[in-house]
């Protein structure tokens, strides 16, 4: 329980006394920087700042605790750069114990956590660096109407399941609108993960994605890589609607840390084939960050080999403060 519980206690005393009695943590991360995007003026941008409350509660059960987690955007720059003030990020409740963890609400899918997140070594959100290169983001990153279960750690092995139940007010569709099955295995600094997921729109169009990731840490050096493949019956792409779209991405990253300074880089390749458009994009980025207690400064540059509207060349000098 952090010192910021005092703030919570004050808020709780005014509004909901029960919150103050919970084992809750108020946390946040302010991330602001000057960005220079190719063919555009320099701009002060919010880089995915957020604030949240999370914690455990006693359910009166042996070995099982209740949990809750809320998180929202804090927009530190102008409103059109990255989300709205207090825009929704996470909001779920659940329970955890020796048997694992279950949660319901708006949350990350295992696919994002296991396949996409290990490559999230750059500070600004992946959206800034080309959402297109993260195939799991659109259907599996902070998704509403989700139920998840994560098994306990079984000698390094852990498995995950998730389901999306998004009723539309009538009984015209299947109750289950999406699912995700994933697993990871960790041993001696090596983590392997695999995930497969399907999402079905009200129209009946399906989006299938699968991916694998590997992460290895040896002393100050971390290496990570992923491969994702996604097939969509119908895909929105630069104002067009593509049919039978097949996308695949592979990415490799490395991070080297000296004291409190980290140097990192990544390379990613994206391919698309569909009835109307085929494409092949490459993207690379380099960065350095230096931590100072709960603060951090960073410099990052991402280069794209094409004039992709969703992934332009971008350089960021950022400052981050966490509490």
């Amino acid at each position, binding site marked *: 329980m952090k010192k910021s519980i005092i703030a919570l206690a004050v808020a709780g005393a005014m509004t909901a006394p029960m919150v103050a009695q919970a084992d809750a943590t108020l946390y946040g991360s302010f991330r602001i920087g000057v960005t220079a995007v190719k063919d555009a003026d320099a701009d002060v941008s919010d880089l995915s700042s957020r604030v949240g409350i999370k914690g455990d509660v006693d359910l009166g059960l042996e070995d099982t605790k209740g949990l809750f987690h809320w998180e929202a955007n804090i927009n530190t720059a102008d409103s059109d750069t990255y989300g709205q003030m207090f825009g929704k990020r996470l909001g779920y409740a659940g329970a955890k114990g020796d048997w694992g963890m279950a949660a319901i609400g708006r949350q990350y899918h295992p696919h994002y956590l296991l396949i996409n997140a290990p490559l999230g070594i750059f500070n600004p959100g992946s959206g800034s660096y080309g959402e297109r290169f993260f195939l799991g983001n659109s259907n599996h990153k902070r998704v509403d109407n989700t139920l998840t279960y994560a098994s306990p750690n079984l000698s390094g092995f852990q498995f995950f399941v998730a389901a999306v139940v998004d009723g539309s007010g009538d009984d015209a569709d299947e109750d289950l609108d999406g699912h995700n099955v994933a697993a990871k295995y960790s041993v001696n600094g090596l983590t392997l993960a695999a995930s497969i997921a399907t999402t079905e729109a009200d129209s009946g169009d399906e989006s299938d994605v699968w991916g694998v990731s590997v992460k290895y840490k040896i002393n100050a050096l971390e290496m990570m890589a992923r491969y994702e493949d996604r097939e969509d019956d119908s895909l929105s792409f630069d104002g067009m609607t593509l049919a039978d779209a097949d996308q695949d991405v592979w990415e490799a990253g490395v991070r080297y840390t000296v004291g409190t*300074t980290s140097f990192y880089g990544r390379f990613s390749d994206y391919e698309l084939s569909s009835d109307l458009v085929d494409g092949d994009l490459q993207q690379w980025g380099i960065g350095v960050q230096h931590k100072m207690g709960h603060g951090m400064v960073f410099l990052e540059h991402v280069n794209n080999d094409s004039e992709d509207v969703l992934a332009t060349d971008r350089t960021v000098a950022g400052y981050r403060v966490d509490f």
Partner: protein
Amino acid sequence: MKTSYARWMVAMVCSMTLSSAVIAEEQASDPWQGFNRAMFSFNEGLDTYALKPITKGYQVVMPDLGERGVNNFFSNLGDVSNTFNNLLQGKVDDALMSLARLGFNTTFGLAGLIDVATPMGIEKKSEDFGQTLGTWGVASGPYLVLPFFGPSTVRDGLGRIPDAMIDPVMQVDDAGARNALYTLRVIDTRSQLMKVEKLISGDKYTFIRDAYLQKRAYDITDGAENYDSSNF
């Protein structure tokens, strides 16, 4: 009486042996002393009648904060050379830290005018190509006083060439701006030396030569030259 004479003789022999050893060592490191002293006099004249008065004027006109900014600016440019030379010496961590200094000082430090990296805890790791050659085992060669540039050795003098080639000032296209930067850097360097030149005593030529050679030997080994773990 006889004993006292013998003692005097022993003292004389010891003194002559020691001084001849010192002279021999001096001749080995500085065989071109005639040329060097001539160049030294030339540089001293240049300094006395041109550089030092200009530098004093610069210090009077420029506010202390401005002087510090100018010094930080050129120090930041020096981290380009530090990055390459640390890398060439196999000091990967120091090369990366020099690169981090360059990045943070150029952006957060407003083009290097403010050294934000040092208070952030990223130390400067100064290296030049002369030191790189020394690390690779290239002997220093004779002491050499270069016109305009001052104390050096054959190795360090040659090392100035690759350092100059990666010097960011050299990359400035506009000749006027480039020469202005070169001049400002010379004045900045001289103003830094104002503080330490008061320490010089005795023969100035010998003092500077010995100080230079010792400092270079220290820098090349990063201060580890005289440490031998087998002595302990």
